C-alpha cells in the first residue's frame, strides 16, 4: 500500500513539471505584454519596468523559468491583479467552501445515485429502469449553469423554500474555525449556524451533483448488472440466502469499485462545474473566484489556481486508487 502511494506521488512530479512549463509558456503566449497583463489597468511605465525586473522578464527564458519555479516552490504564486491579495492566501481562504460544496454534491450523487442505479439494475428493462436511465441522461445534457438557474428560480424564488445565495445567513453571528461552515457550527456548538450552512448548501449541491449523480446511476446500474450474473452471486442465491443479504454483501460491494473510480475521475469535472455553480449561487469558493479571474483576465490567479487544482486533482485520484485496495482485496496484493 505504502509503495503504491510513493509510486503514485512519484508519477505526480513529471506532471507538475510539465504543467509548470505549460503555464509558464501560456502567460507568455497571451496577447500583450506580460507585465501589463500582471499589472492591470493602471500600469505606469515605472511599474512595468519594476515588474519586468522583479519577474525577470528581461532575462533569457530558461532563467525566467527557473525563477518562476523557485518562486512557486517557495509558495509564492504572485498576487491577484484584481484584489492585490496573494494568490495562495486567497486559494486557501476559499478552498474550504469548494470542498464543502463538492463533498455535498458527491453526497447527493452517492446517496441518491446508488440506490437508484441499484433498483434500476434489479428491474432491468422495466419502465422504472427506463425512467431512471432517461432521467439520469437529462442531468447530463442540461448545461450546469442553466440547471442551477432553474433550481434557484423554482426553489428559492418561486417557492421560497431555500436561500438564493451565499454560504450562510449574514444575520447569523457564526464563529469560523476551519471555514468549513457546517463543521464550524458543530465544533463551536452553534447548531443554528451549522444548520443554516446546510440549508445554503442544498441547491448548489443539487446543481453541481447532477452530472456525478447521472454517472453514478449509470455506473452502479451497469456494474450491479454485471455482478448479478457472476457466479458467486448465483451461488449465493442458490444457497437460499435472502435476496437482500445477497445484494448488500455481494452485489453492492463489488459494484462499488467502478463507482469510486468514476467519482475520482469526476473531481476535475466537479471543480469546473463549481466555477459555474458557485457563481450562480454567489457561493464564495474558488470556483466563483475563478469566474471573476476569467472575467477580468486575472492571470496570476488563473495560473496559480490551475496549478494548485491540478495537484489537488492528482491527490484526489491517489486517494481513490488507494481506496480500491480497501474495497477490493484483489487489488491489495497487486
Amino acid at each position, binding site marked *: 500500500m505504502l509503495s503504491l502511494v510513493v509510486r503514485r506521488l512519484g508519477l505526480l512530479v513529471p506532471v507538475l513539471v510539465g504543467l509548470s512549463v505549460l503555464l509558464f509558456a501560456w502567460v507568455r503566449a497571451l496577447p500583450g505584454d506580460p507585465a501589463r497583463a500582471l499589472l492591470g*489597468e493602471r500600469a505606469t511605465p515605472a511599474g512595468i519596468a519594476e515588474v519586468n525586473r522583479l519577474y525577470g522578464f528581461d532575462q533569457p527564458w530558461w532563467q525566467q523559468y527557473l525563477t518562476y519555479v523557485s518562486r512557486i516552490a517557495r509558495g509564492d504564486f504572485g498576487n491577484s491583479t484584481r484584489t492585490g491579495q496573494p494568490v495562495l492566501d486567497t486559494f486557501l481562504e476559499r478552498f474550504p467552501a469548494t470542498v464543502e460544496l463538492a463533498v455535498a454534491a458527491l453526497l447527493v450523487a452517492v446517496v441518491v445515485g446508488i440506490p437508484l442505479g441499484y433498483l434500476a439494475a434489479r428491474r432491468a428493462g422495466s419502465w422504472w429502469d427506463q425512467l431512471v436511465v432517461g432521467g439520469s441522461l437529462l442531468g447530463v445534457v442540461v448545461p450546469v449553469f442553466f440547471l442551477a438557474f432553474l433550481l434557484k428560480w423554482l426553489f*428559492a424564488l418561486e417557492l421560497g423554500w431555500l436561500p438564493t445565495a451565499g454560504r450562510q445567513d449574514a444575520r447569523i453571528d457564526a464563529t469560523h474555525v476551519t471555514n468549513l461552515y457546517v463543521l464550524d457550527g458543530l465544533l463551536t456548538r452553534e447548531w443554528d449556524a451549522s444548520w443554516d450552512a446546510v440549508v445554503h448548501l442544498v441547491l448548489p449541491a443539487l446543481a453541481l451533483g447532477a452530472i456525478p449523480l447521472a454517472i453514478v446511476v449509470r455506473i452502479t446500474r451497469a456494474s450491479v448488472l454485471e455482478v448479478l450474473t457472476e457466479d458467486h452471486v448465483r451461488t449465493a442465491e442458490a444457497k437460499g440466502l435472502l435476496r437482500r443479504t445477497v445484494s448488500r454483501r455481494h452485489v453492492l460491494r463489488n459494484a462499488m469499485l467502478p463507482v469510486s473510480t468514476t467519482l475520482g475521475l469526476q473531481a476535475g469535472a466537479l471543480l469546473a462545474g463549481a466555477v459555474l455553480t458557485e457563481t450562480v449561487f454567489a457561493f464564495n469558493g474558488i470556483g466563483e473566484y475563478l469566474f471573476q479571474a476569467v472575467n477580468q483576465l486575472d492571470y496570476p490567479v488563473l495560473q496559480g489556481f490551475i496549478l494548485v487544482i491540478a495537484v489537488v486533482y492528482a491527490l484526489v485520484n491517489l486517494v481513490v486508487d488507494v481506496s480500491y485496495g480497501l474495497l477490493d482485496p484483489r487489488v491489495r496484493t497487486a
Partner: protein
Amino acid sequence: MPWFPPTERRPVRTVLTAAALTALLAATTSCAESQRDDDSGSGGSSSAGGGGTFVFAASSDPSSLDPSFASDGETFRVSRQIFEGLVGTVPGTADPAPLLAESWTTSADGLTYTFTLREGVEFSDGTPFDAEAVCANFERWYNRTGIQQSENLSYYYRSLFRGFKENGDADLQTPLYKSCTADAANQATIALNAPFAGFIAALSLPALSMQSPTAIAEHRGDEVGGTDSDPRFSEYASAHPTGTGPFLFDSWDRGQQVVLKPNPNYWGEKAKVDEVVIRTISDGTARRQALQSGDIDGYDLVAPADVAGLEADGFQIEQRKPFNILYLGINQAVPALQDIRVRQAIAHALDKEALATGTLPEGTEPATQFIPDTVVGYAEDVPTYPHDVARARQLLAEAGQPDLTLDFVYPTGVSRPYMPNPEDTFKVLSTQLAEAGITVNPVPLKWTPDYLDRVQGTPDHGLHLLGWTGDYNDPDNFVGVFFGKKSNEWGFDDPELFGALDQARGLPTQEAQVPAYQAINRQIMTKLPGVPLASPIPSLAFSAEVSGYEPSPVQDEVWNTISLQGS
C-alpha cells in the same frame, strides 16, 4: 422526487423514502423561516439602536480598509461609514457642506484656507479630533514615499495635489499642498502653492477623510510593504480602521463580508440599526435574487431591466440624481474620423432618445454635452445634433464616405453606473449606425485590462463606449479628465482646447470658472470629439422594511439614518 413510483414489490420502503424526503424538505423550510424570525427578534435586545441587522450586497470586497490607499467604490462604501472628511456634501447633491469642519474661509488669492473644526469630536479610539489631527492627516499624505506614491495606492491624492514632498517619479509635478498649521485646537490653516478652485469640494472624497493618527501609529498604518503591483497592506488597513464616523469596524471575512457596529460615542445622529453587514455578491443577477429571497436588505447598481419587476414585487427603488455621463468616443487617429462631417454624421445617425428608453433606466434624459446639468459650467446653448438619418447620409456622401466601416470597441462583463449594460447599448447604437449606412465591426473586450488598454493605451480603435461618474462637483473632474491633454482615447491634438482647460483649472474660485467652462463646453460640442449620450440614473433597491436611505449623486451615503421597520 415525484418520479418515485409506489411499486407492488416494495411499497412500504418506497413510501417511507418519499415521506422522509418530504419531511426533510419541510424541516428545511420551516427552519430557514424560523431562523429569520429569531434573528430579527433578538436584534432588539442588544443596544440602543434596537434596529436589527442591515445587510447590503456589494459587488466586490473592499480593496483595503484605509481609504487613503484606495480609489474604488466598494472600498469607499465601507469607509464612508467609518470615516468622515473635513467637508461633506449637501444631502442629495454633489455640493460641499460642513462636516468635521464647521466653516472655512479662503484668502483672496485662493492660496490659504482656514478651517474651523467641530468641537468635542473624538476618533473611536479616544483620540481627540483637533487641528493637530487634521495636520497629521495632511502631512501623512504629503510625506508618502516610494510605492506609496504610486497610482495604485495614492490615486486621488496624486491626481488632486499633483505631487509629494519628495516626488518619486517623473509624472509628478510641484505639489499643490504647502503646509498645515494648527492655529488653535479647533482651527487649522492649509496653505497651497497654487490656486485650486476644487479644493473644498475635493475634501469630500473618502480618500481624503480624517483618520486617527494614534491608531495609524499603533497599527503601523504607514508601513505598506511589497511593490507597486504587490502591495501588502498594514494591520491598520486590514483590521483597525479608526475614524469619527457613525459605525465601528467589527470584522472582515475576506471574500464574504464586512461587519460594522454602531459607534456608541458618535457626535452626530447615532445609527439606528444594531449591525451592518456588507456582503460580497459579485454577480448582478445573484444580488437581485438575494434581495428577492430576503437574504439581503439592499443592493446597488440595479439593472434597468429589473427596476419594474422589483417595484411590482413591493421592493423600494431609490434613484440617485445622475452625476455621470455616458459617451460614444470617436478616435481621430482613424483618418476617416478626422473629417468633422463624418463625426457630425455619426452624431445625427444616433437616436439618443431611443437608446435611453430602450436600454437605460427609466427617466434617463439624453445628454447634450460631456457634463451632467448639475455640474458647475453646464452650458444651455451648446450645438446639438438631432436624430436625422437623411442628414447623416448626406454628410457622409459629402465627406466621400458613403460606405464607411468602423471598428466599434465595447466592454463585456462589466456594469458601471454610467453604463449599466454595455452590450445592449452597443447593439442599439450599431443598429442605428447601420441605418445611416455605417457598417460596424464589433470588437468586444474584457473590461480590464483588455478594454481599457485598447481604448486608453493604444490608437487602435474607431468607436468606443466609455463614461465617467463624478467624484465631486468640479467640471475639471469631467472635461478635464477627458480632454485635458493629447490621449490615445481621442487621438487628436488641440492646443486651443488643452490651453483653455488648463487656464480654467487654474482660476481661483468656482464663480470665475463658470463662464470659462461654459465656453469650453460649447467649444467641445462644436469640435465634436465624441457624442455624449446620456446620464443614466443609477438605482438602488431595498426591501420594504428599509427606510431612511438617502441616495447621493456622489454616493456619499452614510447609513446612520437607516432603520428597519417591523423587526
